[in-house]
């Protein structure tokens, strides 16, 4: 398994490229009046947007941003479960802050 920092870096880069590509397509959409090409741009825009969304989801999965709370039924939530999970979230944020400080 690659180091999490490398994964984060690569995913972040990939998303940035997608956003830049979308901006370029947006420019083309605004400036090229040819209808057939406009349709192509829109299709590409749609596909690239989906790619961006999937990359973000992959990032959540690989980098472990998400704490698994799937076993919790919100309707039957217990006070202690809320305490445990907010504690976990705090810990996760604390670690991230420390990583960011080290990176700087």
């Amino acid at each position, binding site marked *: 398994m690659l180091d999490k920092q490398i994964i984060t870096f690569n995913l972040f880069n990939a*998303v940035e490229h997608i956003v830049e590509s*979308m901006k370029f397509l947006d420019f083309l959409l605004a400036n090229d009046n040819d209808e057939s090409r406009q349709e192509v741009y829109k299709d590409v825009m749609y596909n690239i*947007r989906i790619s*961006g969304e999937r990359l973000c989801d992959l990032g959540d999965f690989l980098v472990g*941003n998400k704490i698994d*709370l799937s076993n919790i039924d919100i*309707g039957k939530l217990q006070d202690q479960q809320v305490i445990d999970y*907010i504690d976990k979230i705090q810990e996760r*944020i604390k670690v*991230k802050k420390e990583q960011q400080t080290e990176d700087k």
Partner: protein
Amino acid sequence: MFIIESVITEECNLGCTYCYMHNNPTTMEMPTFQILLDKLNILQDLYHFDEYHLDYFGGEPLLNFKLIEQTVPLLKQDNRCKSFSIISNLLELDDYKIDFIKSNNITVSFSFDGLWNEYNRPLRSGKSSLSLYEKKKDIIKQIAGKHCKTMVSPTSLGTLVANIKYLVSDWGLTSPDLTIVRDDIWTDDDVEHFREEIRDVSNLQIEYIKDNKPVMIGFYQLYLLDMFIGYKYNKRDTGCFAGKKGMAYMPNGICYPCARFGTNREYPIYDLVNGIIYKDNYNMFIDYKFHNPKFFDDCLNCVYYQGCNAGCTYSQMKNDNRPIKNVCKLFDILYNESFYVFNQLKYNKQFIGMLTSKLKEI
């Protein structure tokens, strides 16, 4: 659920310093509201919803109370309308309106800045609205409940604690929903002042709970719930409902992403009166990601990415599709303070019970 902000008048009896609405002299007439109901199926197809919630929004919606009276029976008959409410400063209330609101079980969201009304929310005449609120306190309290929406701006600094005490003690508003104005109006000095003062607010929150007073200041509940929900269900698709999960219907019969876009007449989505769709704008809010915090560079690297919903979409679009730097700093302070309050009170049954029950409502 899909949200419709029905702006039934853009006129207001107040001139709040931070308000984004422009007090344009436009008021919705009954035929325009009827068009919304008649053509709602078009919006349902565009946004794929079966049910909706409608807010009577303004300006000050009670200035167009006649329309509320005329349209509430229609909403009650519409199976697609699951709930409706009035967003109001309540200064136009009288016994007649109270009877109508109570008899129709209409939810009211009370916008009230407490002591800050003195200088933040003058009447249109320029006089203080605070003295008018004091005069009308008894009548307003009949329907205001325990909750109010209170906007925190740089001019609030120095009196945060005093104002919360005023809202809780003088008005019995035990759920003051304090919300920071998320526009680019906060200087670096303001942010530092906020940082210095907020700990006193946090300690006041702790004191209330330890004294067995069921007070929950909006800051803390909101930010803890945001994080919990973000980690449980993943980051939200959009920062706010604008143009994706809701819209504003303006007095001119045109739908906009939200009331702020509407009052500025920017990015119209659908002209229901004339049957014109602004497809580029519609697609932009449905599909594009430039104004979505999920894709903001600044957000992707932020430690609060998972739960934070960033700021106001309109403000961020005006900020070159970036979150506003000092608003992010305020969020950082508020997340830290929310965890501070949580750590002090997590074994207090009343506090954790309030959080848990709120989560169950969601």
